[in-house]
Every structure is written in structure tokens, then in C-alpha cells.
């Protein structure tokens, strides 16, 4: 039986730098060149100053727990046999959040505000994605 592929993002010109950054091991965030506001997820326009101009900055690499879920039901055939896995909603010091799987710990280790570090991992199919671990 052929393996079923995990969902892959539809990458456009606007979001290409984000995915290229992850492929290079870096979590990049969009920064408005008009007013400096950092926004995530990537989009065309700054909602504060309405400038289209932007560049990309690397995230500091730290985060704290905002919330989480533990996925038990797979909902997609490619994730069958993988759950349960913990997905963390994490606050970044840059003022935005990411969603990322928790590595090397269970959800019992989590509380609001728990300190995390951000990493980047290949999903086993050639797509680099952010992950989080408990900060030491």
C-alpha cells in the first residue's frame, strides 16, 4: 500500500520566504517596513499602517504556553497511528503566536506561561516545521 502524504502547504510568492526560512532552520516573521509591526501568519498588508512593504526577521527562539490540545483522533489518514500528539499555541516575545507540536514532553508538563524554546524539524516528508520544547 502506498503511504498517504501529510498535508502540504500551498505556497505562494508572499509566503515563500517563510517556508524557505524553515527549510534553512529559521523561523522567520514578517515585519512591516512602514511602522515596524511584526505580523503572523504572513499576509499582504499591515493592519496598523496599511503598508504593503515588509521584510523578514528571525524569531528570537523563545516562547511561552498560551494554550494547547492533545490530538487523539487523526482526522487525516497520514496521521493515523501517530496520535496522541500535543499541539501548543505559544506566545512569542515578538507579540505573535505560533502553533507547534511539543517534543520530548507530555501535556502534563504544560501550564499557561510555561517557558518554551522553538526549534525546526523535518516532518519526515521533506517539509520543515516549527516545534517547541520545554525550556531548561
Amino acid at each position, binding site marked *: 500500500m502506498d503511504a498517504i502524504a*501529510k498535508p502540504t*502547504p500551498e505556497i505562494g510568492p508572499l509566503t515563500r520566504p517563510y517556508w524557505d526560512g524553515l527549510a534553512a532552520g529559521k523561523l522567520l516573521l514578517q515585519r512591516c517596513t512602514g511602522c515596524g509591526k511584526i505580523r503572523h501568519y504572513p499576509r499582504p498588508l499591515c493592519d496598523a499602517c496599511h503598508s504593503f512593504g515588509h521584510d523578514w526577521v528571525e524569531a528570537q527562539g523563545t516562547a511561552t504556553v498560551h494554550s494547547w490540545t492533545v490530538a487523539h*483522533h487523526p*482526522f487525516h489518514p497520514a*496521521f493515523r497511528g501517530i496520535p496522541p500528539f500535543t499541539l501548543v499555541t505559544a506566545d512569542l516575545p515578538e507579540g505573535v503566536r505560533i502553533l507547534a507540536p511539543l517534543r520530548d514532553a507530555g501535556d502534563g508538563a504544560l501550564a499557561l506561561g510555561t517557558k518554551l524554546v522553538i526549534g525546526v524539524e523535518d516532518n519526515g516528508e521533506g517539509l520543515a516545521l516549527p516545534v517547541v520544547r520545554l525550556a531548561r
Partner: protein
Amino acid sequence: MSLSGKAAVTGVGDTDFTHDAPGKTILELQLQASLAALRDAGLHPRDIDGIVMPMGGGATVAEDFVTNLGIPDLRFSTTTPLGGAGAVAAVQCAAAAVATGLCRHVLMPLGRLGRSGQNQRIGARIQAMPQFRTVGEFESPMGAMAPAQFYAPMARRHMELYGTTSRQLAEIAVTTRRHAILNGNARMRQPLSIEDHQASRIIADPFHLFDCSLESDGACAVIVSAADVARDMAKPRVLVTGVAEGHPDSPSAITQRPDMTRVGLAKAAARAFAMAGVTPADIDVAEIYDCFTWVVLCQLEDMGFCGKGEGGAFVEGGALGLDGRLPVNTHGGLLSQAHMAGMNHVVELVRQLRGEAGAAQVRDAEVGLVTGYGDLGDGTIAIMARG
């Protein structure tokens, strides 16, 4: 100009709700429900001059109804693509259309093959919807594919901040099931206990199986008419006295929402209550969108039935039962009747306010409300009154 009292629901209809509508298409189910609503309203199909399709981009379009019902002069048609908020958004749209004289009788058909539709299970279905494009690119590759997974962090944060418990969510599931058992057209008719809920498998923590609604097959249809025309129609008028729509902050990604324990209804509810000239204390019965138990609890808070963080205590002790402080989802809801994207909630509110709700009738129900909750937190609300 206020929309209050300018429109009335004059016809409601539904099909049997099943998990496997044998050989039926969504259009056939919608036509069956539409004919039932027309009979209920005492209207002929030729009287329909407006159509609002909740959940735009669905399998059927207004033209299908013109063709099959033989509607000679359709003057207004549109869609309300707000997911589960679309049914009540359609009521708002229809009310505006009849109030301004664009048309007189608006048909709103909603049908689903949620259970038996080919390749249409929830994970695959939402990936095709433009409302989910952002999470589709940035969250689905990590395995976050389905509403249960997107909404679970909202509930988890509420639990961590306010001490809300899974047993309190179970209260909602158990009370809703009790109502479904009274309903001759509900999919889940076996009694459910808090212990059954707690023992059910976890889908996406903190949601157990019985926190989740039912993929179902069937259809509902509702007719909204101009209030002056409705005075002389078959059934007692049910007036739309307040209606509103609200969108949450960061509507395309819950992950980025400043306060993920608050949904779009928080912005809409105050507007609807003000339009209707009532407060939560005046509500006799509430049909609250219940794709998940926690979504009911959150909406109770966001409408002001209790404060933020107080929803868990509010729902305890059968408070949402027929004799409780606020009878909720008297038909069995999406949790135990069927997932008809909230059009079944509109149908039930109208039956309650007409006194046609059978064994689940709330005594002396005169003022009630129905909410919708869709996609990543869009909210809608309609307040209705006998009159």
C-alpha cells in the same frame, strides 16, 4: 430604520435526520424540506420571490430551486458563507430583504450529507473552504485539520484561566441528550450520563467524543416573510425582533486571536438585544449553536447570561433543561438531534414560540433566541417573539 419587527418566520420544514440518507442528493433533501416549509406557511412555490442559501459554495444554488419549484419571478438571491453562523446570517439577510421591499417571501434551504457524502468528511471538507485557507497553509501540515482541533485550545485556555471542567461540559451534552430523547426526529435517543461522557474516548483534548456534534444527513428549510404579509398567513407570526452578526478578532486564525475565549457573538449579542428591546433575563428559550459543548458555554458568557469564566457554574445542575433557568437546545441540538448547521435550531425556535414543540415544549415560551457559530468564530444571533 430598525429591522426589528419588520420580518417574520412563516414556514419551517425538515426531513428525517439520519446517518445515511439512502440514494438521496443534497438537492432532493433540500427540496423535500422546502415543500414541507411551504406547506407549513400555506404558500405555493410561486409565492417565493427570494432565496438565501446559507453556507455559500455548497452543492446547490438558487437556480436549482427556481427550476424544480417552478418559481416564476425570483427577485433576490444571495449566499451567507459563514459556516455554522450562516443559517442565522440568512435570517438576517432575508429580514433585510423583506423589510426593504426587495421581495416578500424568502426561502432558505440547508441540506447536508455530512455522514454519507463521498470524500466529504470534516477534515477533507473544510480544506476546500476559502475561510480555512490560512490555517490550511500554516496549521494543517502539523495535523490540525478539523474544527475539534482548532477549537480545543480555546476550551483548554478557558479551563486553565477559570477552572472550567470536563464534567461541566458533560452537563451540556447530558441535558441536550435528554431533550433529543423527547424528539421524534433525533438521531441520538439513548440516555447519556456524565459518567458515559467522561468514559468516552478523547477526540482532541479537552473534547471527548460526546463533546462533539453528529455528522448527519438531512435538510431543513425556513421561510421569512414581510411582517405585514405574515399577519394573514397560516400560522401565528413569529417576529424577528433583533438580529445581528459579529466577527471575532483575527477571524482567520484562532491561534493569533488576542482573547481566544471570546467569539464573534460577543460583538453581535448586545446589538441584537438592543434592537429587540430585551435583555437575557427576558429569554424563555435559547437554541444555541452546539458544534461542541464548550462552544455553548462560551456563547452563554458572550451573550451576557453570565460573566466570562462563569459558564461552567451556570450550566451545572441541569440549568439548561426544560425546567431549568434557561432551557437550551430543546430539540437535541447538533450534539444529539443532527448537524444541520444550525438551521434545525431556527426551526426549533419557531416551533417553540408557536407552541408546536411537543414533549419538549417550554411552557409559555414567548421570547427566544437562536445563535449561529461558524468557521473560526463568526457569530450570529436572532431574537424572535410570538406576535
